[in-house]
């Protein structure tokens, strides 16, 4: 049961709480009585402050009871005193009783009451502030008085106006903080005398009844006490100016007035006259100014100008100002400033600045002559550069940098005494950059080309470092001694070498040939050695020949080793086999070639300069004149104009037995340094020049038709091969006979200036050969091809003997192609 009750109570509480929680509404908060006041002891009002309203509209009710009674009354008047108030009128007010007042706030949920307030009417008396406060000042005889007037506060109940208030007044200067309070008594006006002139005062009034408190202070009133009235101070004439030398204006500064109206007048007189005039025009030029028009302006006379300030107390005159209009001319700034860009002859642009004089100035009649001055600075610059231009109205400016911005200003002045005008408005100048595309393109091209050239140069340097060094600093050639046979050297038979040389004990030298070679003997013999012969008597050569003959593998079918042997010495290729008679200059070239060749460590194959024409023909060989396809590289063509018989490069196919002379081609000396392509098939070529000159004829031994002389005709480092004709082609076709007879091969033609086509044996000639015309035709590969088969050539480049350095001869047999 109890539990049930408790539980039900709890439930109800919970319900209530939830209700509150759900709706947010509750009974109102407690109101509070703020104050109660009585204005005149006959009525009073009370005001309260509501509490929280609990979310619902509240009703407020005021209940009161007198302390001597128990009855509770409700407020008679809620309206008169405003919201949340209660007004007790005369009937309800008893000054001698204490009221106990309570305010109750009620809403739907509940109600709440304030604490009771004990109110004693007599103690809450406070009248309203006085109203209608007005102030006046009066200044007489240098004394200023302040006259204040007001009215008593108005009452709600107009009937009882007979209350007697006591008043109090306070005042202070506006800027100050402290009030000066004066007790006025019961009158509603007051006069204050101790006032300072020129000060603004603020005044307030309040009142009180015999009981209670003072009212609030009334609203403020302020008043300005006028200053002491004095005559005005002296005005000052500031300046006089004439803008065009026809009129002028004068300005003055007004005198400070003491609050009174001050009037200014201007008087002037001219030099030499006594009469004083007043300013003709006060308005045109603005306040505090006087404008003299044309009629009133005279030149070359001095004006005496004064200004007088007048007010009620008196007047004051400024100091006289003497002015001669001629000297006070200050024109307006120039106008119509224009810029024009012009191109001078040198295509550097310059600027022409033109302007016109100010419109008022009469320059045309010459009455006023102006001088101009420019002021220029770059936009970011600090200082102005002034340029005096004179009387001209244009200026050419050459010193401006393209692409930069400049500011320019102009002002002017009369040429005689006068003043500079104001600066004209700023003018901005910017010269466009003359970006000539042409120039840039040129520079770009130059840059690119130079960089390319540098790259190429460096590349060349890298690649051909050696050669360049050799070119620039040729190595010191080793000594070449005539008669040294590289074979001998190789063989190590130094004795023989030396003996060949004829000097014993001479150390073997390098193989570079420095001897002049007259001609090459092409042997038609077995050994088939090309033996160069020297001009210089060299009997040794013969000996050598023989010796070498014996030594060398004669051009037999079975001397394959010759070539290799010869090949071994890859140095000094050209000169070795080919001794050419060189001219003076030629020698150097030989050497050069020698050295160049020396530098090369070429495998035999790569020797270009080896050119062989080998006539091969062992009998057992078929188609002896088989030549390697590489033949083409090994062609010597001779420009044989002298050859009368149709030379033919033919192999003797028929006669197998016969040994055909193998024309041994001459090595080309090192070609030009440029040709460094060893990879190519040997393109050794020999320049063969037909010795057409008669002086060369001695070389052309008719007997030795087949001799091929390598003769150097020109300085162009091309060894030439002279054809030695041999009448009787006494060619023995002995293959294996190492006869001493030499076989010579006729050179048929020179093809392409560097290919020597050798004649095969005439007797055995029956095969036609194409005879290329003299040289000029390009190498006819076809022909050569055709002839290749029939031509003699060395087989393998490797076989070709390049260097044969230093040796006197070449063994034709060495050139024998490997027909096998």
């Amino acid at each position: 049961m109890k539990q049930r009750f408790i539980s039900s109570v709890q439930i109800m509480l919970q319900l209530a709480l939830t209700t509150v929680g759900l709706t947010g509404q509750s009974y109102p908060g407690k109101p509070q009585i703020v104050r109660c006041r009585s204005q005149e002891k006959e009525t009073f009002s009370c005001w309260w402050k509501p509490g929280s309203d609990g979310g619902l509209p509240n009703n407020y009710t005021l209940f009161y009871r007198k302390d001597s009674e128990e009855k509770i009354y409700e407020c008679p008047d809620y309206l008169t005193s405003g919201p949340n108030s209660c007004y007790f009128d005369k009937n309800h007010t008893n000054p001698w009783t204490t009221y106990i007042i309570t305010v109750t706030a009620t809403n739907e949920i509940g109600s709440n009451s304030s604490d009771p307030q004990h109110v004693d009417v007599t103690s809450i008396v406070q009248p309203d502030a006085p109203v209608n406060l007005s102030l006046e000042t009066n200044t007489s005889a240098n004394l200023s008085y302040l006259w204040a007037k007001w009215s008593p506060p108005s009452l709600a109940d107009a009937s009882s106006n007979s209350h007697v208030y006591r008043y109090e007044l306070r005042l202070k200067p506006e800027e100050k903080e402290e009030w000066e309070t004066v007790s006025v008594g019961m009158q509603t006006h007051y006069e204050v005398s101790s006032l300072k002139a020129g000060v603004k005062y603020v005044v307030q009034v309040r009142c009180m009844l015999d009981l209670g408190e003072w009212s609030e202070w009334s609203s403020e009133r302020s008043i300005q006490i006028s200053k002491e009235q004095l005559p005005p101070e002296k005005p000052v004439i500031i300046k006089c100016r004439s803008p065009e030398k026809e009129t002028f204006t004068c300005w003055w500064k007004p005198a400070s007035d003491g609050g009174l109206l001050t009037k200014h007048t201007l008087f002037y007189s001219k030099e030499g006259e006594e009469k004083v005039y007043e300013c003709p025009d006060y308005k045109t030029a603005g306040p505090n100014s006087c404008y003299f028009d044309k009629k009133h302006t005279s030149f070359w006379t001095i004006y005496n100008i004064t200004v007088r300030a007048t007010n009620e107390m008196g007047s004051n005159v400024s100091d006289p100002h003497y002015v001669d209009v001629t000297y006070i001319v200050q024109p307006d700034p120039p106008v119509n400033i224009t810029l024009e860009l012009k191109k001078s002859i040198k295509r550097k642009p310059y600027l022409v600045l033109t302007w016109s004089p100010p419109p008022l100035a009469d320059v045309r009649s010459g009455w006023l002559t102006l001088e101009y001055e420019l002021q220029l600075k770059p936009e970011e610059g600090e200082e102005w550069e002034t340029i005096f231009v004179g009387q001209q109205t244009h200026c050419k400016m050459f010193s401006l940098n393209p692409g930069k911005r400049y500011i320019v200003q102009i002002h002017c002045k009369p040429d005689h005494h006068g003043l500079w005008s104001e600066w004209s408005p700023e003018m901005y100048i910017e010269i466009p950059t003359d970006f000539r595309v042409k120039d840039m393109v040129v520079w770009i091209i130059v840059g690119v080309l130079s960089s390319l050239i540098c790259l190429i140069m460096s590349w060349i340097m890298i690649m051909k470092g050696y050669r360049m060094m050799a070119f620039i600093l040729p190595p010191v050639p080793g000594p070449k001694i005539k008669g040294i046979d590289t074979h001998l050297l190789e063989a190590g038979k130094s004795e023989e070498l030396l003996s060949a040389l004829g000097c014993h004990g001479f150390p073997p030298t390098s193989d570079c040939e420095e001897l002049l070679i007259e001609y090459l003997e092409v042997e038609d013999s077995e050994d088939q050695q090309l033996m160069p012969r020297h001009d210089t008597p060299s009997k040794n050569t013969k000996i050598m020949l023989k010796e070498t003959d014996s030594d060398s593998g004669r051009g037999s079918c079975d001397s394959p080793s010759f070539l290799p042997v010869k090949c071994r010495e890859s140095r000094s290729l050209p000169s070795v086999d080919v001794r050419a008679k060189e001219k003076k200059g030629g020698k150097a070239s030989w050497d050069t070639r020698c050295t160049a060749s020396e530098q090369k460590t070429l495998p035999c194959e790569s020797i270009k300069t080896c050119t062989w024409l080998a006539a091969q023909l062992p009998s057992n060989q078929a188609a002896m004149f088989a030549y390697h396809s590489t033949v083409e590289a090994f062609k010597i063509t001779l420009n044989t104009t002298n050859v009368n018989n149709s030379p033919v490069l033919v192999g003797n196919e028929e006669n197998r037995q016969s040994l055909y002379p193998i024309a041994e081609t001459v090595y080309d000396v090192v070609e030009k340094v440029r040709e460094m392509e060893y990879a190519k098939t040997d393109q050794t070529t020999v320049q063969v020049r037909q010795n057409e000159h008669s002086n060369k004829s001695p070389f052309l031994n008719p007997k030795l038709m087949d001799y091929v002389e390598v003769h150097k005709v020109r300085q162009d480092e091309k060894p030439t091969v002279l054809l030695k004709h041999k009448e009787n082609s006494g060619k023995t076709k002995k293959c294996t006979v190492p006869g001493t007879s030499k076989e010579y091969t006729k050179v048929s033609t020179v093809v392409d200036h560097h290919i020597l086509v050798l004649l095969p044996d005439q007797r055995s000639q029956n095969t036609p050969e194409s005879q290329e015309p003299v040289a000029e035709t390009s190498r006819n590969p076809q022909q050569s091809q055709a002839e290749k088969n029939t031509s003699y050539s060395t087989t393998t480049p490797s076989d070709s003997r390049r260097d044969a350095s230093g040796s006197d001869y070449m063994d034709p047999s060495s050139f024998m192609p490997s027909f096998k």
Partner: protein
Amino acid sequence: CHTSGMLTPNGKEYAQKIPREELTHVILKLLQAWKEPLSHFNQYIEHHQELPDDSLSKAKQISNMVRELKTGVEKIWNSTAQRSDTSVVFCSSIFKVCCMCSTGLSISNEANMMSDSDFIHCFRRDSNKVQSYLKILKCRIMPENSC
């Protein structure tokens, strides 16, 4: 100033209205009026030597200039006017005054009375007058570029 008594056009309108001969004559009169006082002044400062040297040289320079100017204007005057004698009956068309103007003889006494500052002041003014008149004259005779 000793030249204050001269009738000279006092403004632009006057200067433009009077005929060329009159203007030339006025200029000439002014220049002539200053011939004597300048020479006196030169003598004065030479004797007293109170001024610095450059002022002295400047004064001499000015005197020369005035003399030359006078000569030039005389030429103009002689070319425009038919009379070559210096004594002229000169009637101002503006002021309607005729006067017998001789060349500054009567003025010289006054000139001696002037103080230095007055002298300089008067000279400055008169030279300005002459300059202005000459410019107007120039623009009338040769209205070219600068006018």
